[in-house]
């Protein structure tokens, strides 16, 4: 689920990323086995209240569900026909509530906080000689570049159609793969130009060198 970060600080931004992710995990575990329709309607109302508490632009984030309506519809009909409508509504509502809650965390949490919160999960990598920071960075990169890749695909598809091609053709797969590789090469280069995944840690890191703000005489 890729969505934009809400760039206006709200009460939810001030809560720690670890707490938000922890609560999210707890909710998933608790809600998964439930099958009461009333409970999920209550949860949906709760989730919407959370969004509303962020203000109008917060509430409008709920629109992100729009592209998934078809998907929810299919699940609902499928369950309705084979196991019963009540069941169908429960399954769909459970999905909607979980998506809304997860998205709520992602629009109110900075990427670097999120990385720091999940980094402990990757600590075991250290024993294998890996670096948790690298994984956290990789996660950040994936989140950052999924929308970029979608734009790349959009561009390709547009120029293909501009020359008479059909929408969603398999012919775009190869050029898309090539362009994605090219992009990833550029990004990798840009990352290593700033010290790579491991950084250029200085000796006096704990001393906390100050940014020499005066050294850069850049005019107003």
């Amino acid at each position, binding site marked *: 689920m890729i969505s*934009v*970060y809400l*760039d*206006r*600080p709200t009460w939810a931004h001030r809560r720690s990323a670890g707490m938000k992710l922890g609560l999210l995990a707890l909710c998933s575990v608790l809600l998964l086995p439930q099958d009461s329709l009333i409970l999920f309607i209550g949860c949906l109302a709760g989730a919407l209240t959370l969004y509303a508490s962020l203000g109008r632009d917060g509430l409008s984030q709920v629109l992100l569900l729009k592209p998934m309506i078809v998907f929810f519809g299919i699940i609902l009909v499928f369950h309705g026909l084979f196991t019963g409508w009540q069941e169908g509504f429960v399954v769909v509502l459970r999905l909607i509530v979980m998506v809304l809650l997860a998205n709520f965390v992602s629009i109110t949490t*900075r*990427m*670097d*906080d999120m990385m*720091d919160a999940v980094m402990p999960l990757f600590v075991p990598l250290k024993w294998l*000689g*890996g*670096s948790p920071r*690298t994984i956290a*960075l*990789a996660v*950040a*990169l994936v*989140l*950052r570049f999924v*929308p*970029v890749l979608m734009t790349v695909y959009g561009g390709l598809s547009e120029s293909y159609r501009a020359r008479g091609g059909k929408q969603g053709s398999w012919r775009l797969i190869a050029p898309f793969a090539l362009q994605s590789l090219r*992009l990833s*090469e*550029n*990004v*990798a*280069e*840009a*990352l*290593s*130009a*700033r*010290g*790579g*995944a*491991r*950084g*250029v*840690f*200085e000796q006096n*890191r704990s001393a*906390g*060198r*100050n*940014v*020499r*703000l005066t*050294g*850069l*005489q*850049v*005019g*107003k």
Partner: protein
Amino acid sequence: MALWHPLRRKDAKKELNPNQDVYARFDRVKLTLGNRQVLSDVSLSLSEKRIGVVGLNGSGKSSFVRLVNGLRRADSGTVKVFGSDIDDVAADLPRFVGFVFQNPDHQAIFPTVGEEIAFGLRQLGFDKAKARDDALRFLELHSCSALVDKPFAELSEGQKQLICILAVLVMEPKVLILDEPMASLDGLAGRKIMQKLKKLDQKLLMISHDLSFLADFDRILWLEDGSIRMDSVPGDVLPAFRADVERRSALELGGDDL
């Protein structure tokens, strides 16, 4: 190209002295990519405050400047950066040699401006709170504090490029390399960025196709087919380069229609 390189930081560490005047010295450097000789026999040293690089497409400009910060390594000859062999100090180079790419969308890693700036500081070993604090102060200093929580994708092209430059500057390099930084900007945004660049303490090594930006540089390198065709002050090189482009286009496009 790999993000994580098990050997990268294990190489014997040599201290480099970033306070010397000459920041890069090329000695008979050759570079081959695929089976193409991209640079042949380049020898020079770079020390001037502002050096421009010009040349036609494919003449080797990008490859040349990438040799200075270790993004590319020479096949033969030596590249010394601040007096040390580049192979010995490559891991430390990002601290001293900043690099700004042509396309800001390839450079920015984080979704918001503040995180993008703070990333450079965390690369230097700052903890998160301090990195974020200093990033904000740095943005304030450059009158960009309003952008701190803005998603990078929503900035104008000019703002994007400015943020990319700031994200490199915050690491306080001694030298700033720019590979056609103004290519995607309109004339006004380009000029604004150039004005900022001229006020920096950092030494500049900049590729540009817009020669007007280079007119008051200290030195211009003209690359042609992988070698230095001319190396002098702008007053000499720029008119000669312009005349050469004119001559070629007259020759190649000539009277015949395309």
